């Protein structure tokens, strides 16, 4: 049997004369990408410069750019306050995010109904987010003022003793976390409410017919379906509160003593207030890497949770 040999030339496209496109067309891809490149440079340049300065002994009072290796990092780790600073940074982030998540869940669940009052309350939720964080913190600070503030009389009215709030180490963390919670619980609630609203009604009606209690449905159905939204809240709030600056600074500037000296506050105080730029930078850079890796992990987890909530294994 005769078989025809097939060769590559059988499929070759006849050669065409190539015409050079005009300059603008050739440059178009780069022009389109240009804004992104500019932004990238705006982000990358300070970062690279920051890393470079952290490898020197640069201070504003002694502008010395000699390379000193990782000495600044070593100094940071050996600092007597380093462990406490790590602890307070994490404690702030974990407690603020945790409380916001729980309260947000409760608020979202309560608002997830078709009543007029729910709609009105939902609109008022965004009020705390419309005030500049520093302003609301200063107002909270006034309210917490031990002698003239309004919070202590309110505590007394319900039979609780007065607090020294942010003025003493025992309640300082509680005070700033309280402000953070007031400010950002609505954010958590809105995201979670949006999640609840996006759910199809069918499965929840089926659960009612199946005779499942509120808790049973919440644990077995609502929570797994809500996990991607919970993780969005965690990603935003945890990242944000790890690097929280404005609330703590406006409330106590890191005090009393060094009670609230988180990484961010330490970096600011060392680099800017004490003008030792290179010595403060490692805190900021380590914080950057912590946030980077934690967010990477959370985003991956979020992707998995989303697939699972949608009904894939």
């Amino acid at each position, binding site marked *: 049997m005769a078989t025809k040999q097939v060769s590559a030339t059988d499929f070759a496209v006849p050669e065409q004369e190539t015409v050079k496109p005009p300059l603008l067309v050739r440059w178009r891809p780069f022009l389109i990408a240009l804004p992104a490149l500019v932004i990238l440079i705006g982000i990358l340049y300070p970062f690279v410069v920051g890393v470079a300065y952290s490898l020197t002994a640069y201070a504003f009072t002694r502008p010395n750019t000699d390379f000193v290796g990782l000495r600044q990092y070593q100094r940071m780790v050996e600092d007597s306050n380093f462990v406490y600073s790590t602890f307070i940074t994490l404690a702030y982030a974990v407690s603020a995010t945790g409380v916001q998540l729980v309260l947000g869940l409760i608020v979202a669940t309560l608002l997830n109904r078709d009543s007029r009052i729910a709609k009105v309350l939902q609109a008022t939720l965004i009020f705390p987010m419309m005030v500049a964080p520093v302003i609301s913190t200063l107002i909270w600070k006034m309210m917490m003022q031990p002698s003239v503030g309004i919070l202590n009389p309110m505590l007394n009215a319900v039979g609780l003793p007065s607090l020294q709030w942010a003025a003493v180490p025992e309640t300082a963390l509680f005070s700033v976390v309280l402000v953070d919670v007031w400010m950002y619980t609505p954010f958590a609630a809105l995201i979670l409410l949006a999640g609840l609203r996006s759910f*199809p009604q*069918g*499965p929840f*009606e*089926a*659960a*009612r*017919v*199946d*005779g*499942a*209690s509120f808790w*049973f449905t919440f644990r*077995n*159905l609502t929570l*797994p*379906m809500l996990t991607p939204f919970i993780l969005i809240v965690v990603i935003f709030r945890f990242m944000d509160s790890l690097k929280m600056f404005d609330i703590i600074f406006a409330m106590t500037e890191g005090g009393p003593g060094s009670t609230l000296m988180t990484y961010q506050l330490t970096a600011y105080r060392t680099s800017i207030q004490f003008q030792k730029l290179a010595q403060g930078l490692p805190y900021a850079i380590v914080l950057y890497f912590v946030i980077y890796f934690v967010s990477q992990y959370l985003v991956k987890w979020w992707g998995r949770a989303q697939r*699972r*909530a*949608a*009904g*894939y*294994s």
Partner: protein
Amino acid sequence: MAEVRLDHIHKTYKGGVKAVVDLNLIINDGEFLALLGPSGCGKTSTLRMIVGLEEITSGDLFIGNRRMNDLEPSERNAALAFETYALYPPLTVHDNIAFCLRARQVPQAEIRRRVHEVAEMLEITDILGRKPAELGGGQKQRISLARALVREPDVFLMDEPLSHLDAALRAHMRVELKRLQARTGRTTVLVTHDQLEAVAMAERVAVMNFGVLQQVGTFDEIYNHPANEFVAGFIGEPPMNFLDCEPASQNGETSLRASDGSFSVKLPGELRSKLDKQTVSKLRLGIRPIDVIASHQASGNGVVEIAGQVYTYESLGEEGQLAAHVGGSEVLVVTSPDVAFERSQPVWLQLRTHRIHLFHGDTGAAL
């Protein structure tokens, strides 16, 4: 197992939409009943009221002699297979089916036994470990049925269970559902807009339109003795022809004459005596397309034949479908495959007069 009784049930939604109006219906213990009607006729609202997802505006609902109006869905022991399946997306097939048993704290061993039992009945044991999103429509549908059946409900309700399946699967599932119902012997209500489904599965059919129950009966009763013009036109495919007529007298015998004068028809005795008992001036003559015989020439054997003109003709292989203009109306005819027609040809239509249905011109009720 229980009888379901709907007693003067009304459903009015916020905004005044009347979804169900004065519905009286008894679904016997162990019966398979289909609620049939076009979309928006109130059939799904009825189903949702029975299961408890929708409040009853007025009237009483009884399941097995217990008044159910104020009971939660979970207390009614009525299971619903949703049109959209409404499976629990994050749970495996096994956990979807086991959900209601777990919610009721049935012991673990019994859960396993019952889930496997129902999974075997529906042939889904091999997918018990999978998640809903990975499965096809037919499998999802079986899971939703399994979930409803595993509870051993008193009443089994299905809302358009087959509408999202492809044609072949639908035909297969029709048979399956019917067998399932026969096997379990449960009181079953099927909501559908598809008369084929209703005929294939249900023992009795309840036809609804605009929230009002039109007729209840076996399919034969409804097909052969439709209670009104709506039922007559809704049941049967292709739909029944309706022609405006008025009673006339011919040699002392009551006959029918088209309102536009295009034809007149002698009536068989039974219909004639029915017509004689009433005083109606306007009538609607209903005749099914298969009860009209079309031919190219008048047969001339004394039978009344109506002259018309071919409007369209389609050959469908084993039969043909002809639309003819008679006066101002259009008449659909199912023709035999031996004869073909051309557009605009004259055509003679002979009605099987004993198959004529007569309706009041104003009310649409059957005579």
